[in-house]
């Protein structure tokens, strides 16, 4: 079945900060053009017009942290021809997935005066853990040009052109000087997927890994090197692996190894983050 000339696009939000869907509004110069190419029928952040499904393209932001959201997601999946996850929360649990490695009750008690009013799951999980997804766009937040590319690709029935290579590739193309080699900074660029345009290194700061792991990422290798040569502590390693994309498997594996090493060394806090 061919895509209609003006596919119906909807934007949905789960546990997230809204930054990814705001990237769509950030497409200031291109926004009018997009709205000619697709019919934005449900985008509460942008318009009061919220039409019912079915939808041709659903952009889904955020992770699943409540039972209610899980049900809502199932309905959205049923209403959507293509479901596209946007951002680190939707693709790898997001910052809020740090609860996955400790007792969520501790956070609830620390943050809310009446935690008993909360109804939340023990974990923050990616959309793909619950329903079939058609595409995952990485980033915290996503890059607006990549978002445009993905929307256009689905709207016109072609494969999105999104590279799976390392941030280093963009970093060198941009002419940045490697902050790891020239300044000894802790940088996750070599294991992180490109797409941001090597933004942080362009401002002389190591990559935080917000776009998640690249294909064939040698996570343990880089972490070992940063610890041996660039002063990364075990706790820094664990925190950096569980920052933006905690549910990404290659990061989880090495973070667990860090936990085990910490436990073996008898250090305090074998897996949790204390504040």
């Amino acid at each position: 079945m061919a895509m209609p000339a003006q596919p119906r696009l909807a934007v949905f939000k789960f546990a997230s900060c809204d930054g990814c869907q705001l990237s769509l509004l950030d497409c200031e110069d291109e926004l009018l053009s997009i709205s000619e190419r697709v019919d934005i029928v449900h985008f509460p952040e942008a318009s009061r017009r919220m039409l019912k499904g079915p939808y041709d393209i659903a952009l889904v932001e955020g992770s699943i942290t409540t039972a209610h959201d899980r049900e809502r997601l199932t309905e959205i999946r049923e209403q959507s021809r293509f479901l596209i996850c946007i951002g680190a929360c939707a693709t790898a649990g997001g910052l809020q997935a740090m609860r996955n490695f400790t007792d969520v009750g501790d956070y609830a008690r620390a943050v809310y005066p009446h935690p008993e009013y909360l109804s939340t799951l023990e974990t923050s999980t990616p959309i793909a853990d619950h329903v079939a997804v058609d595409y995952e766009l990485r980033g915290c937040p996503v890059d607006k040009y990549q978002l445009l590319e993905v929307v256009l690709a689905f709207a016109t029935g072609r494969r999105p052109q999104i590279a799976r290579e390392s941030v280093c590739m963009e970093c060198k193309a941009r002419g940045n000087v490697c902050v790891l080699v020239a300044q000894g900074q802790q940088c996750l660029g070599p294991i992180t997927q490109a797409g941001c345009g090597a933004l942080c290194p362009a401002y002389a700061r190591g990559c935080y890994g917000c776009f998640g792991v690249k294909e064939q990422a040698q996570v343990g290798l880089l972490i070992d090197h940063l610890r041996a040569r660039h002063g990364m502590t075990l706790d820094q390693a664990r925190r950096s692996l569980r920052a933006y994309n905690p549910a990404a498997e290659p990061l989880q594996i090495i973070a667990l190894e860090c936990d085990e090493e910490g436990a073996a060394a008898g250090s305090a806090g074998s897996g949790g983050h204390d504040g």
Partner: protein
Amino acid sequence: MRRWTPTDLQTLIDSLLADGIRVLGPRVGDAAILYDEIDTLPIGCGDEQAPGYYRLTARHDQSRFGYNLGPSTWKQFLFPPEEAIFRVQDGEFISCREQPEKMAFIGVRACELAAVSIQDRVFMGDFTDPGYASRRENLLLIAVNCSQASGNCFCASTGDGPAVGVGADLILTEVRPEDPYYLVEAQTEAGQWMIAAVGGPVAAPEEIDARDEVIAATRQQMQREFATEGIADALLSALDHPHWDVVAERCLACGNCTQVCPTCFCSTTREHVNPVSLDVTHMRGWDSCFTADHSYLSGGVVRQSVKSRYRQWLTHKLAGWDQQFGLSGCTGCGRCISWCPVGIDLTEEVAEIRRPL
């Protein structure tokens, strides 16, 4: 041969700029020496390099060329990281080729000159890349004999340096870094024209010795050795050597080595699509044999493992290249060693792979 002062060198830059030529050379930026548009040369800059390590240092002298190679290569100007090739507008193909501007590279080292001539074979050999060729034809090359070597240099082993070979318009030698002067030789008519624009006294005959001493001292300083003899056969007959697995356990497959390599020429293409008209601009950009997409063919990725990617890079650079272009793809610049985040050393890996089992 002429003898110039630092002021004469500045006069050369000024006269090139006055002629509307884009002058590209060393600039201090982001904790390294970069190649960029310049109107003067940095003074007293040096560096320390080891595998996976680079630090900009102060030399506390007046040298203009006292630094070794940084992460920039001249290829970024001749074979840019991203370039529009053509666009399709209302169903019509329109070339994006621009009128080439005149460029002058200042401070080209021997290994870099060799790298430019290798890329000349790639882009102007059996097939001519029109963009590259037009930029290359409008280029002045002002080379420098190296007056020092970094910990990662090995051009003496590959035979590409430290003395500048053929292909430059002008060759400079910096003598006496605390109070430098420059021995200047022209290799082409354009070089003679540049000498005429600046003037300066003819150098005394014994200055040739001063030049040769600078080069000999650099050669002496170069610690790293690389056995190049028979390397192509040795590598191609060692495709199953267990050391490939050892390298693969240390390689991040990030692609940095290929992006800083002055001879790596792989590219990929992608389309920039206008959201309304759906007009397309066909872009060409740097690629790397360390990415999965590089070997993606219908049905899947050919080189899935890190091992197969590293082996592809090394065997192409040092063996396949010879079959394709009649020479090795390595000029001993050592950038792949310095800028590998984990410091994988090509010279050591090759030595291991050449070791009989």
